[in-house]
């Protein structure tokens, strides 16, 4: 099948926006444009982006500051506040942030160089961050703009000052996003329910979902050692996953992956979890992967914890793994690879929440910011997210309880059934034909 191309634009503000764009790399004309970095952005504008990035990283870590941390965090959360969805009402009135962004675009020429670059070829433009999309929409350039929403609910700033004007279309990862867009005044015909773009290497073909189905089947076997989950759902699982029967036993120990956010704020959690799970790791009942991201200091700290806890001999030997790469794309490749064998993904409810569609239960770490709060609500709503059932230092107790009562397997299965998994393929359809079908069944969504 001929591959059509699009401009794919992302920014570096944590890993979330880039993680959303990365599965679209095969469709990206001239590769993914990582705007706001020194190489892609003129110096005058680069300063604005650098400032934004500093604010982002500060806000991710501000809660840990002594004394002032809590009040500062509360203040930041108030600034990022998202209006409650209920009661349903018109929320289209622009906020201060929307006005400020509009001014940056119209007076300061935000993203002007990006638009010049993209205007060379009138291709569709996929944005995973609002500022570039709003600027492109404001310039009314040739070629359709699509803005990919990266959370399950979101701030008004993602929609331009007058949502009824312009030609920007929105790619919604879930129904709540569509509802929110309507509340912000976006016309229904400009909202496309695609699902969050997930890595194709974790799915397989769009028709067969071979990789996803096989990985999920093996995962469910590991997550249900007492067969409590299967006693309720066996027929459903065998039917959807195209299997004949259940094998007598699962292969290998449970594999927990703990993802540290792009700003590296959860390092201390990783130490406590490792300490708690050490006996299980040593006994071969548990495999733990910690995803360090792209920060060397974070990786070195984690390595230090592993050595201090006397787990060095288990490192990269089936007991403990660390995922790190200084190159962001290599890191994402490694992370996606490790997800294939991951049985439980322990993460703050970031954009990774949408990875529950791969049939991976999300063990929810405390959220940072309002978007993550709302992602947590969404995960709860579809039963794909599980709360930590006790303090971190007792992970070795409650995690195995969750395992034995089939709760983790249930969350894995609910995520697979209820979350959309074909986002990448549907966006590729859009690029190619300008339209895509929402799909009805779990294998079509």
């Amino acid at each position, binding site marked *: 099948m001929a591959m059509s191309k699009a401009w794919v634009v992302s920014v*570096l503000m944590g890993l979330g926006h880039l993680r959303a764009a990365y599965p679209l790399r095969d469709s990206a004309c001239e590769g993914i444009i*990582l705007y706001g*970095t*020194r*190489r*892609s952005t003129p110096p005058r504008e680069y300063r604005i982006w650098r400032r934004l990035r500093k604010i982002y990283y500060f806000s991710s870590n501000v809660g840990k500051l002594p004394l002032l941390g809590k009040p500062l965090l509360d203040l930041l959360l108030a600034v990022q506040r998202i209006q409650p969805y209920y009661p349903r009402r018109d929320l289209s009135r622009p906020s201060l942030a929307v006005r400020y962004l509009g001014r940056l675009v119209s007076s300061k020429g935000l993203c002007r160089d990006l638009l010049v670059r993209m205007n060379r070829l009138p291709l569709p433009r996929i944005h995973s961050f609002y500022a570039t999309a709003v600027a492109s929409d404001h310039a009314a350039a040739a070629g359709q703009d699509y803005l990919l929403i990266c959370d399950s609910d979101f701030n008004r700033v993602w929609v331009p000052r007058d949502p009824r004007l312009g030609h920007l279309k929105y790619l919604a990862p879930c129904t709540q996003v569509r509802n929110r867009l309507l509340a912000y005044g976006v016309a229904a015909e400009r909202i496309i329910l695609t699902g969050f773009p997930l890595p194709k290497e974790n799915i397989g073909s769009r028709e067969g979902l071979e990789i996803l189905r096989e990985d999920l089947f093996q995962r469910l076997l590991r997550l249900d050692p007492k067969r409590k989950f299967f006693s309720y759902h066996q027929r459903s699982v065998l039917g959807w996953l195209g299997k004949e029967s259940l094998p007598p036993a699962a292969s290998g120990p449970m594999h927990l992956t703990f993802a540290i956010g792009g700003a590296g704020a959860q390092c201390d959690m990783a130490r406590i979890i490792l300490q708690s799970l050490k006996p299980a790791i040593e006994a071969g009942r548990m495999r733990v992967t910690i995803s360090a991201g*792209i920060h*060397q*200091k974070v990786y*070195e*700290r984690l*390595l*230090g*914890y*592993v*050595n*201090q806890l006397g787990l*060095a001999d288990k*490192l*990269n030997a089936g007991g403990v793994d660390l995922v790190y790469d*200084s*190159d*962001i*794309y*290599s890191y994402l490749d490694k992370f996606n690879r490790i997800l294939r064998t991951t049985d439980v993904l322990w993460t703050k409810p970031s954009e990774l929440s949408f990875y529950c569609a791969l049939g991976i239960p999300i063990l929810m770490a405390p959220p940072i910011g309002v978007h993550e709060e709302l992602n947590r609500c969404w995960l709860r709503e579809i039963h794909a997210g599980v709360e930590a059932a006790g303090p971190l230092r007792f992970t070795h107790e409650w995690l195995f309880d969750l395992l034995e009562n089939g709760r983790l397997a249930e969350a894995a299965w609910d995520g697979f059934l209820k979350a959309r998994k074909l986002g990448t393929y549907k966006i590729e359809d859009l690029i190619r034909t300008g339209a895509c079908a929402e799909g009805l069944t779990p294998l079509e969504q």
Partner: protein
Amino acid sequence: MISIAFLSILAFSLIVYGAFLAFTLRFRPRREARIDLGSRFPRVSILKPMKNLVDDITANLESYFTLDYPNYELIFGLDSLDDASLPVIRSLGGRFPEIPVSIVTTGHSDEQNPKIFKLARMEASAAGELFWVTDANTRVAADTLNRLVREYQRSSAHVVFSPIRGTGSRSLPSLMENMSLNLFTSGNIITAWKAFRQQIIVGKSMLIEKAALGHFGGFSYFSAFLAEDFVIGEAFENGGFTLSCDCTWIDNVNRTTTFAGFFRRMARWAKLRLRLKPVFYVLEVFLNPVALSLALPLLFPAAGWLALAGVWSCKIVIELSSYLVLSHGEKEPRSNLLMLPVAVILKDFILLVVYFVPFFSRTLVWQGGSIAIGRRTRIGGPREILALEGS
């Protein structure tokens, strides 16, 4: 009040040098009759990144062909086969056929640390369970590797590092450079380690356990930083690995440096230090008693010149002691002793000028390339250029 504060700083400065000297004397190079390694001789790959000719290259390299250690190989990394050091390596390889030698042509990179760029490519050819990274201008005694391996085994360290002894001075600038290496650099290394268990690794000699390095994905992990030695030490320390130094000295042969060469090297190191430890670097100005003492005649019109002479004399005595203990026995010409007082004073004035250079420049010339550095000596400035726009 100001006068007392100034005198305190001056006294502190001399005390620090006194401490450097004391530690240097305590852990000065010594010969040992026999070094017992038991029955285990882990294979060592000696990695030598090369770039053209340096002073006494034949004798330097020969010292690595004549080590007592029974289980080692030599791997040379060259930019290309046109490198001027290649005939020397081939000739030595012919003279010592019993020593396994590999030559790896690596190319050169200006966007990464050139030395690490080489090491990362040499690593693939190395069969040892220990890597000993040494510079081309170093020379070692026959038992050096035995000592380092003994320390590795004794302390279960993953990195063993060494103080550096500058030797071979045949010119005033080379004498100044060697004196700076012996007292300031090695004094720092030994004092920091022995008194505070703080590592200061100088990349001229690092014995690294291959398995531990593997946890970082090999040398390329450090390629974004120009001060690879410091960053390696820091990463191993953060990563919970053990570092050790038993004060096995490594000679740095430096015969013919010019004033310009001395200035450039000192400025390069100063630029690295400022980016690695800005606060410590700013305070370094207080470790130049000769330059500081110029204020004495202004602060104490009556006895200022006498005090200045006293400070200079103290510094000369300290440096002379260091020279006599470390370098004088190493076939250094007697004329060096006569030049030494001048060398001490001149060196410290040059270092005062050098001190200010890093505040105005972050670009340095090294291994044939001009490299701009940012925080922690990251090459090219902010990390995103290298890491975030990736492949």
